[in-house]
């Protein structure tokens, strides 16, 4: 009996004081891309558009637009841009409320807004979520799961993952939604009592990610369910997911 206690003392308390302190991210972390339209020339033959594996980039009159919902954060575009117009910053805050807010024109991203007052009254202090993996490769699922570890300690914010959709206030969906998971996702959604939320985590759930356009998938949750929060990334860092959830619940001051 004494050994676990001694080990507990030795390992110490490891919960990170988020959101009071900024999370520690690796130097090479690829977060929010920054588009410098002034530098974006037309002499490059659209190298970035051609390099992007998911077609996240498109050219408009004002330069290049990046759809964060499709972006895999592989930085292939930044590597080929001759003018250095695209670079990946270490900004981990990425979540948005609307799909079109993820269309990044320069480096300003309209971050997710809080739920309305009525919804906040219901969910603000206690949010129970049912997670559905609908074709996810397990990376998004893993980094959602770690929110339950003591480093992130999701429970202290009143957010909890529950086993049954009937106990849930909403769904957190990962994966491009395969044809084979469509019915299961719809049934799980139907089993959640209203009012209810949907959170799409990862490029796959938002747009299909690398599986975009494949006949076996539905290109994300959008075609099936109304989404309240989008967390981009492939997979999003746990801090990005936590930041999104706390924004939704108006817990970031």
């Amino acid at each position, binding site marked *: 009996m004494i*050994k*676990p206690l001694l*080990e*507990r003392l*030795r*390992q110490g308390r*490891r919960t990170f004081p988020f959101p009071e302190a900024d999370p520690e991210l*690796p*130097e*090479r*972390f*690829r977060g929010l891309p920054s588009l410098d339209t002034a530098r974006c020339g037309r002499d490059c033959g659209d190298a970035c558009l051609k*390099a992007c*594996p*998911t077609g996240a980039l498109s050219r408009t009159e004002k330069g290049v637009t990046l759809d964060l919902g499709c972006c*895999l*954060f*592989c*930085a*292939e575009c930044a590597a080929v841009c001759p003018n250095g117009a695209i670079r990946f910053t270490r900004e981990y805050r990425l979540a948005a409320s609307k799909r079109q807010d993820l269309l990044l024109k320069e480096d300003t991203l309209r971050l997710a807004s809080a739920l309305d007052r009525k919804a906040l009254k219901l969910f603000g202090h206690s949010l129970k979520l049912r*997670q*559905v*993996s*609908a*074709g*996810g*490769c*397990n*990376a*998004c*699922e*893993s*980094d*959602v*799961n*770690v929110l*339950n*570890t*003591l*480093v992130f300690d999701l429970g202290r914010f009143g957010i909890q*993952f529950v*086993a*049954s*959709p009937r106990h849930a206030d909403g769904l957190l969906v990962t994966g491009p939604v*395969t*044809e*084979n*998971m469509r*019915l*299961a996702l719809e049934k799980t959604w139907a089993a959640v009592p209203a009012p209810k939320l949907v959170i799409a985590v990862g490029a796959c759930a938002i747009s299909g*990610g*690398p*599986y975009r356009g*494949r*006949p*076996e*998938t539905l290109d994300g949750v959008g075609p099936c369910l109304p989404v309240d929060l989008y967390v981009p990334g*492939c*997979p999003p*860092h746990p801090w990005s997911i936590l930041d999104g959830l706390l924004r939704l619940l108006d817990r970031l001051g």
Partner: protein
Amino acid sequence: MPSFEPLHILNGQAAALKDIPSVPPEDFRRATLDCVAEGARVCALFGCPAAGGRTRLYMLLAHPRQGQIAVFSSEAGPSYPALTPDCPQVHLFERELAEDYGILPEGHPWLKPVRFPHRENGAPRPAEIGMIDFYRTEGEQVHEVAVGPVHAGIIEPGHFRFQASGEEVLHLEISLGYQHRGVERALAGGPDKRTVHYMETLAGDTTVGHATAYAQVMESLGGKNPGFRAQTLRAVALELERMANHAGDLGALAGDIGYLPTASFCGRLRGDILNLTALVSGSRFGRGWIRPGGVGFDIDWATRDRLLERLEKIVRDLTGAVDLLWNTPSVLARFEGAGALTAAQAVELGLVGPAARACGLSRDVRFELPSGKYRFSQIPVATWSSGDVFARAWVRWQEILNSAEFIRAELESLQPEEILTAIPGPAPESLAAVLVEAWRGEICHVAMTGADGRFSRYKAVDPSFHNWAGLAQALRGQQISDFPLCNKSFNLSYCGHDL
């Protein structure tokens, strides 16, 4: 004896398609059974579209004693006598052939859908997902429990059907396919700019394993190997991936029996190891680290020192956390004897990875058919013989220690060199086969190119494909309430299976 000699290639070697023996079906069958009798195991059996709308079958067997892969092929007719009754380890491959190409393995005892794939042009599916004729046992005391596809935890979907008498499981049937994204179909016609991203998301927790296999495929088809430094960094990435996942599994095993100290320590420590991978590649899963021709990220001396320093602390903390398991009688009482398999069962089912090594088999590609850095740096094969949950946990712990030691030695011997070399385009009309020992076990990638050097077929076999049947077998005679524990001790991939 068959009237031909299979083509023998090394792990990571390419061969011209014309050099692969094409034999009549009866020789194909006899050669397979002969090789298996000699101690070989089936790495892959798959179909490939051939001229005239026909299908050609390819067989790849790993010969551990010879350290080589045997390859041969045969043109398939509409049906053939199933291999499964004489060679149970191919049971799922034959089901896959029937599902994808309509080839009937006559006498297959368990011919059911595997992935319920999408059909082109809206053609009707042979079966709706999960709607199959489940195996049933009858009796007054017998009841059936259906679980999934959506499970209670944050986990991928699959359907489990238990036939139970009271608490005792008589049989468990596992029906997957929910994660089917059509990856292999998407890979045909490649390589292109999405290919490496398909590889990195075949199974997200095995990003490094699958990306390494793909990189080696491209290198063998291009006829050029990356430098020593790149090979070293790849091996470091692969061992970090193994450590992180094994640490997470030990924590989850502790959690499943309600032993919370190790569960919470290991949950954090898994993250700490993932953060080591992120220190180099910027991604906790190593996205972008492995690329054909080498690696996408180098390690400078300062990063190397930081990595080694953090690794040492992690191993110290892990030792403290995991030793609690072996010192707590109530933990051992739950681990020992739960979900046991014998070595003979493991051989018959063709198990790979820690699940096989926990049955006493020294099956490890890094040792038997090494490629890349493992040809020069050996790593001990961890085995245990009891075949139960304890053995699978113990093997994982030994592998964590071995991997940590390997990483330390490799990083200390790192020599300066270019990390990425240009690889010539894939040779036409060729086949390349690569085996990688990822954390779950043997990954097998086989690429075949057409006259234009593009993939005419890309077959990827995740270790889970071999091991799901092992879980079903291990559950027999166990209590239903032990299912989470047994399941976690295998910790198989759903999307890796459903490709």
